[in-house]
C-alpha cells in the first residue's frame, strides 16, 4: 500500500504536515521548559523538545546529526540535567516564585528578538539550492576525518578536560561538611 502524494483533505505534502507537527511539538515543549512551575516537568518537556528537533534534523536531510542529537542530548545531557535537578531540589522550591522580577521586560525583549529574526529572515534573499539536499554519511565521514581533523581532535581534548573539570568541581571536599 502506498500513500497518496498529498494529504487527502488538506491538500499539501506529507513533509509539510510532518514539519508543522514537529515544529508545533517543539515550540510547545520549549514553552513548557521555560514556563512550568515544577522543574522536573520542564526537564521532561526538554527531552520531548530535543526529540522533535531530531525529527526536524532528519526532515532537513541530516540523519547523522539527528542520531547524534538523540545520543548526546536525549541520552546524556537530559539525564545529567535530571540528576542535577534531583540533587538540588529543596522542600519549598515548588512553592517559590518561578520567575525573577524582570519577567515582563524579559518577555518583551524576547518577543522583539523573535520578530526581528523573522523580519530579517523574510527580508533576506538567501542563495539557496532550491530544494532540500540529503547529506551523504560517507561524504560526511570523509569531511570530518580529512578536512576537519584538527577541530575533531581539539573537541576530544575539550570533552576530556570538561569531564575532569566537572568531576573536580562537583566533588565533595574531604574534611568539609
Amino acid at each position, binding site marked *: 500500500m502506498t500513500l497518496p502524494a498529498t494529504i487527502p483533505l488538506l491538500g499539501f505534502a506529507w513533509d509539510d504536515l510532518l514539519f508543522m507537527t514537529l515544529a508545533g511539538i517543539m515550540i510547545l515543549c520549549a514553552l513548557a521548559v521555560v514556563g512550568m512551575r515544577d*522543574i522536573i516537568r520542564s526537564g521532561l518537556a526538554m527531552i520531548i523538545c530535543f526529540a522533535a528537533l531530531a525529527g526536524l534534523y532528519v526532515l532537513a536531510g541530516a540523519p547523522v546529526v539527528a542520531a547524534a542529537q538523540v545520543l548526546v542530548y536525549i541520552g546524556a545531557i537530559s539525564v545529567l540535567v535530571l540528576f542535577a535537578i534531583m540533587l538540588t531540589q529543596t522542600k519549598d522550591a515548588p512553592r517559590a516564585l518561578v520567575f525573577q522580577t524582570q519577567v515582563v521586560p524579559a518577555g518583551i525583549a524576547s518577543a522583539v528578538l523573535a520578530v526581528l529574526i523573522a523580519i530579517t529572515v523574510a527580508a533576506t534573499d538567501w542563495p539557496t539550492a532550491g530544494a532540500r539536499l540529503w547529506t551523504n554519511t560517507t561524504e560526511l565521514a570523509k569531511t570530518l576525518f580529512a578536512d576537519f581533523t584538527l577541530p575533531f581532535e581539539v573537541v576530544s581534548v575539550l570533552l576530556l578536560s570538561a569531564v575532569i*573539570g566537572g568531576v573536580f568541581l562537583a566533588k565533595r571536599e574531604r574534611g568539609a561538611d
Partner: protein
Amino acid sequence: MLSVLNGLSQSLDAYLILSGILFAIGSFGFLARRNAISMLMSIELMLNAVNLAIISFGAFSLSLKVDASVIALIVMAAAAAEATVGLAIVIAIYRNKKTPLVDEYDAMRQ
C-alpha cells in the same frame, strides 16, 4: 487558505524562523527564570536553535552541505562540555548556599 502552508518544509525561511522562535524562547527562559538549572536548560534550548539554523543552511545550500553537519556535531560536543561544567558549578554552589535560586546568590553584595 491552507495554501500558505504549502511547501513549508521546502523553504529555508520556515526553518530559520522556527529556529529564531526557539532561540527567543530560550533567551526568555535565561532572563526570567530564578532556578539556575532552568537557566542552563534555556541555554541548551538556545544552542539547539543555533544548531537547527546551521543544519537548515546546510540543507539548502550546496556549498555548505557537508560542512554544516560537521559544524553542528562540533557545536553539540561543545554544548555537552558546557552542560557538564555548568551543572557541576551549580551543584558546587548548591552545596555551599543550600538553594538553587540565582537571586539568593548575593555573597558579593554583602
